[in-house]
């Protein structure tokens, strides 16, 4: 009975893995099969009204609509990759992406590493404060904190004038977090692009704008310097053409002057949010589970190999094991993920799909932990067991397999189940490389509706439910094996 269960479990795991490999390959094939060229374009999906996911979770916004209009006009296809702004910058530089459109201002500094299209939008930085605040000008910010979002014009503006006006800068990765910081009173004000700010306030954001747009900056479509000339030319030609036909103006009006793409009238009550987003949330959850299963499989293989290497009676093998564990346990998961996703392509020139990069990241990190406790578990088996086995004439390998491993593995099962739960939680960090798992899904929903508190509550509850189920299962396993 017990044996059959493990056979079944192993069989289904292998089936899952091979299926996932096939489907990964399938994805890449379908992209290549298209007749028109398809470009991978990065964007920051949390930057309405330029790019955000609408209530059907389709990517829309001024940038996206312009890009799609140009693509149609010029006869090419685009595949929008939602990452963070910084993620898109790195992925474009490393060749993971062909270009990016993300409300990106054309600056001399960026021109050093990117080639830009002709400007397609003129923006400017405005200052916003809490409605009740008595701050009316930049002069009153002395000694206070100002919130900005990394990589934006607002951040640059803040940097430029912070000494003159004597304020401190706090940096955020997500617009919503920056707004929240002002609304809670942590920061006295925030700097953001005027259309973004206007859009947010129209969404019910409790902030008011106190300055005129400063440092007006043109937005451009960017490619890695010296590469993708053809794409850039197509973009410029298309832009000129859609301006002539009036389509350009229609798009801008739709987002800034009309109600078109804005998700006004969404039901932002707790249950309304669940109802409205249940499909995307469910998909996000599935991606999280999928990522966890595939990752823990490879992490276990990785961990067993390097854990066992660590208990071989050979200095070299032990050294390799110790070093691998030291490196991958020592690296923060976030750094490792960004290194694998953006660093490896810059070194080797081959793209790594985000999901694969995510699995590799978790394989190394969780695998190092598994290796460490596998090694520890085996070493904690009484040395007398090995001596007794060897004294009978059993070779090291046989003694290991028949006597030491069965006892060691029993000892590590609780740690292993624990690691499974940690892995599930750690998948959330992979939202930085744009994997659409549960946390990233939450970020995207919030970028649209700015309902940070409620959406994070929903996401947190979903994580808790899954982890509770896992904990029950693990307790059941521990009980039935009397661990």
């Amino acid at each position, binding site marked *: 009975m017990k044996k059959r269960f493990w056979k079944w479990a192993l069989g289904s795991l292998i089936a899952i893995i091979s299926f996932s490999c096939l489907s990964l390959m399938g994805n890449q094939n379908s992209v290549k099969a298209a007749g028109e060229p398809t470009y991978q374009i990065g964007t920051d999906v949390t930057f309405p009204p330029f790019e955000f996911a609408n209530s059907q979770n389709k990517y829309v916004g001024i940038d996206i609509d312009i890009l799609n209009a140009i693509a149609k006009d010029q006869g090419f296809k685009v595949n929008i990759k939602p990452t963070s702004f910084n993620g898109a910058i790195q992925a474009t530089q490393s060749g993971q992406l062909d270009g990016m459109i993300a409300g990106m201002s054309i600056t001399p500094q960026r021109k050093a590493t990117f080639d830009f299209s002709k400007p397609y939008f003129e923006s400017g930085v405005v200052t916003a404060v809490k409605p009740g605040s008595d701050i009316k000008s930049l002069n009153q910010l002395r000694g206070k904190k100002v919130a900005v979002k990394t990589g934006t014009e607002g951040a640059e503006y803040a940097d430029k004038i912070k000494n003159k006006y004597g304020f401190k800068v706090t940096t955020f990765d997500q617009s919503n977090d920056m707004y929240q910081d002002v609304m809670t009173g942590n920061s006295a004000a925030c700097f953001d692009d005027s259309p973004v700010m206007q859009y947010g306030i129209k969404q019910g954001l409790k902030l008011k704008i106190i300055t005129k747009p400063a440092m007006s900056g043109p937005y451009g479509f960017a490619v890695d310097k010296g590469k993708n000339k053809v794409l850039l030319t197509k973009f410029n030609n298309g832009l000129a053409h859609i301006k002539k036909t009036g389509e350009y103006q229609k798009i801008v009006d739709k987002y800034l002057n009309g109600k078109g793409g804005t998700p006004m009238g969404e039901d932002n009550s707790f249950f309304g949010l669940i109802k409205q987003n249940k499909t995307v949330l469910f998909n996000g959850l599935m991606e999280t589970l999928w990522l966890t299963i595939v990752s823990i499989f490879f992490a276990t293989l990785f961990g067993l190999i390097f854990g066992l290497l660590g208990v071989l009676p050979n200095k070299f093998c032990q050294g390799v094991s110790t070093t691998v564990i030291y490196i991958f346990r020592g690296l923060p998961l976030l750094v490792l993920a960004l290194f694998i996703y953006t660093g490896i392509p810059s070194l080797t020139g081959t793209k790594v799909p985000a999901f694969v990069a995510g699995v590799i990241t978790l394989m190394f990190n969780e695998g190092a932990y598994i290796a460490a406790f596998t090694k520890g578990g085996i070493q904690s088996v*009484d040395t*007398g*067991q090995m*001596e*007794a*086995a*060897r*004294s*009978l*004439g*059993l*070779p090291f390998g*046989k003694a290991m397999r*028949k*006597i030491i491993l*069965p*006892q060691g593995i*029993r000892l590590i099962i609780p740690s292993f189940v624990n690691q499974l739960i940690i892995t599930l939680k750690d998948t959330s960090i992979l939202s930085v490389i744009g994997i659409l798992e549960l946390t990233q899904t939450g970020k995207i929903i919030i970028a649209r509706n700015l309902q940070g508190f409620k959406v994070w509550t929903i996401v947190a509850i979903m994580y808790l439910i899954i982890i509770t189920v896992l904990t029950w299962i693990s307790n059941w396993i521990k009980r039935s094996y009397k661990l």
Partner: protein
Amino acid sequence: MSQLIKVSHLYKNYGKHHILKDIDFHVNNNEVVVIIGPSGAGKSTLLRALNRLDAPTSGSVIINGLDIAKKDVNINKVRENVGMVFQHFNLFNNLTVAQNIMLAPVELKKQTKKEAEANAHRLLKLVGLDDKFNYKIPQLSGGQQQRIAIARALAMNPKLMLFDEPTSALDPEMVADVLDVMKKLAKEGMTMVVVTHEMGFAKEVADRIVFVDDGKILEEGTPDHMFNHPTNPRLKTFLNKVLQA
């Protein structure tokens, strides 16, 4: 009186510590040799050199004509003929009593499963525990575990049995059961090297007693010589201590 064990100029160091110093030692076929000496003297180290659980620093350890101090001998083959019984039994905790006994003969292709099973029954009868065939290890008392450990070592049909304080970890009422099994083995002509503090056993069963202190053999001889006419002053002190206790 052919020699089964011949140890010459055996040294063992742990770092700077000299644990065994120039040991010369031999055991004849069918002989029972008991090693005595104070704690930390190096008795276990000497015993464990006889199946290379502790590799010698220098010198030779010839077992059945083969110098196991040399790196190139197949030590597993030698160990098949040298059974060992440990102070803390070291029965395999993940296996049953029968599996403990049958593992090595079957894995090393000495016996078929059927033969091993019959053999296990025979050995369990010999140590008086045939009813425990399918027991798990934690269900047994210390004395029972040690007798099973003896059966496990005997399952390989060894030419030589090594015992390292087999009764030191046992409650007093269980010591006799284990010693009885060992006496039975001695009577059947098994060659044995026994480290023990059981002076009664030494007197009754040993053909020869070896006194080890400070990494050296200071005196050896028959039980009569060792107990009634000892010459080495350290042996005299040692005997005074253990016989009074």
